[in-house]
């Protein structure tokens, strides 16, 4: 097989892996948008906050320690214990549920029925507030999150795909990061679980009902507030998963909240209300930007990954504004 085909394939595979992360963040957006019409700008910061909280709990960091020390003149930083990853994850989930409740109780409950742009502004405020709280609570240094996910290239895959080169001496088999592979599996399980939840449970049914029509949902006895807390909790959980994967890969740092921006073009492609759209959109952007960089990057001066997704989204906006899976918008006259 020729080099370009083999390396092209590897680029596609790596793109798919990167896309999984975009898809995860986009998924969080879609969940909240569907159920409440809120475009949650804070989804990326939620991933950051979740990952920082998880790290803090694992290593026994004292929350708000800088603040406490500044006020009381103490020098506490750590509790002096370490907590196993699985336990810390459970505690973090509880924190995210509490966060969901607070957000609903103190912000969005008071904004029901407001214009989408107002809800959006509220989430921008929330994003910066949460970022500040995260900083104050856990400190701003980069944290190496290690919940025990395997890292580094998968030799097994490399060895077992070498034959595909058919004697090509430049090809040693596909190089795929184990962490990416695990992330893919986790994302797949998460999506299947979400779909099963929304199809087969009482709360899932209620969630779909609320996403479809608020009035009708009320009339069959659904507590909208409860469902919205639930949806924010689920989005918080999805954010945690994204935060764990991203944090394991590149460390937990504030630039994590910027991945939220990459989710925007993903949503343009996938549509704001489609879960399969978020997945497929994420994968397309992931593969697209890697392939584009591979094929045309050198000719265009490189770093095309910074803008490719946005330009692709722009093209989509012009030719298919409803996204890949959205229903065609026909204006009533």
């Amino acid at each position, binding site marked *: 097989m020729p080099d370009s085909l083999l390396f092209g394939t590897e680029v596609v595979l790596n793109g798919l892996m990167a896309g999984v992360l975009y898809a995860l963040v986009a998924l969080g957006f879609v969940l909240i948008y569907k159920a409440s019409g809120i475009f949650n700008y804070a989804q990326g910061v939620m991933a950051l906050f979740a990952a920082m909280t998880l790290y803090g709990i694992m290593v026994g960091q004292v929350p708000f320690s800088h603040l406490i020390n500044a006020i009381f003149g103490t020098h506490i930083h750590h509790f002096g214990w370490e907590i196993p990853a699985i336990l810390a994850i459970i505690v973090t989930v509880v924190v995210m549920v509490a966060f969901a409740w607070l957000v609903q109780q103190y912000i969005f409950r008071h904004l029901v029925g407001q214009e989408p742009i107002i809800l959006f502004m509220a989430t921008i405020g929330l994003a910066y507030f949460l970022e500040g709280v995260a900083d104050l609570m856990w400190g701003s240094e980069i944290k190496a999150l290690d919940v025990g996910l395997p890292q580094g290239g998968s030799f097994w895959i490399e060895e077992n795909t070498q034959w595909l080169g058919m004697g090509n001496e430049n090809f040693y088999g596909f190089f795929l990061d184990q962490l990416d592979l695990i992330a893919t599996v986790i994302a797949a399980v998460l999506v299947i679980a979400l779909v099963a939840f929304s199809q*087969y*449970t*009482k*709360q899932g*049914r*209620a969630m*779909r*009902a609320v*996403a*479809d*029509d608020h*009035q*009708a*949902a*009320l*009339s*069959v*006895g*659904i*507590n*909208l507030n409860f469902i919205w807390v639930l949806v924010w909790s689920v989005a918080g959980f999805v954010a945690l998963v994204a935060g764990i994967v991203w944090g394991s890969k590149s460390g937990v740092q504030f630039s994590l909240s910027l991945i939220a921006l990459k989710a925007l073009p993903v949503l343009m492609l996938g549509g704001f209300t489609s879960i399969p759209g978020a997945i497929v959109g994420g994968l397309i952007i992931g593969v697209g930007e890697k392939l584009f960089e591979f094929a045309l990057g050198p000719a265009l001066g490189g770093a095309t990954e910074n803008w490719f997704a946005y330009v692709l989204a722009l093209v989509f906006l012009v030719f298919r504004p409803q996204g890949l899976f959205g229903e065609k918008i026909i204006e009533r006259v």
Partner: protein
Amino acid sequence: MLDASEGYTTEDGRKIGGVVMEMKNITLRFGGVVAIKDISFDIREGEIRAIIGPNGAGKSSMLNVISGFYVPQEGEVFFHGKKRPQMRPYEVARQGIARTFQNIALFEGMSVLDNVMTGRLNYMKTGLFQQALWKGKAEQEETENREAVEKIIDFLEIQHIRKTPVARLPYGLKKRVELARALAAEPKLLLLDEPMAGMNVEEKEDMSRFILDVNDEFGTTIALIEHDMGVVMDLSDRVVVMDYGKKIGDGTPDEVRSNQAVIDAYLGVSHD
């Protein structure tokens, strides 16, 4: 009137029981608009109670007060003889009051079956973790709910569209699906806001028959808003007449028809 044990017998020999729902001196304002002005009336067990009146009279507003969608500034609501505290619509629904809307509110993205199934949400007791861990119980519950839903689907003769996405249905069938969803909740009191609006004669006849059958077979108490006088006279046991937010008549169809205030309100007032 206030004696809950007191009842009456209709012309066609049905026994009507005590007061299920009593509205006392209800006033509802939207800014300067007074949608309901100091209205009192009751709904009795097993009866079909109509609310009529010209456009903008405040009929829908009244139904919305009963179902908790609107909160009146003044007045009290008694349900089964007990004063009802201010309640959110979902809490009212959980008390056994189901409704349909004047401008159909269905889950457009779901099939007919799924729509009707949402009417059973409050009968799904098994919690999330039980559902995940203890499949047997959840399955049994699901089967029971399915059976109840299928019964209603048969009853309203919509078997042929069970799997059809609601968005694709014609208007008349949508109204029927909405009724099916309300019935799936096995309500004590059923509120119908213009169940026959926009229907052709044949569809209206079907719907009238269904409403009578629901009342007859399930013993459901029904309050309905309707513009078509013929239909109202045929269906209802007692009628409340509203005009500009005020109650101008209350009684049997015959009594109401010969009431001068009602005749005046309807003369020269456009309604469909």
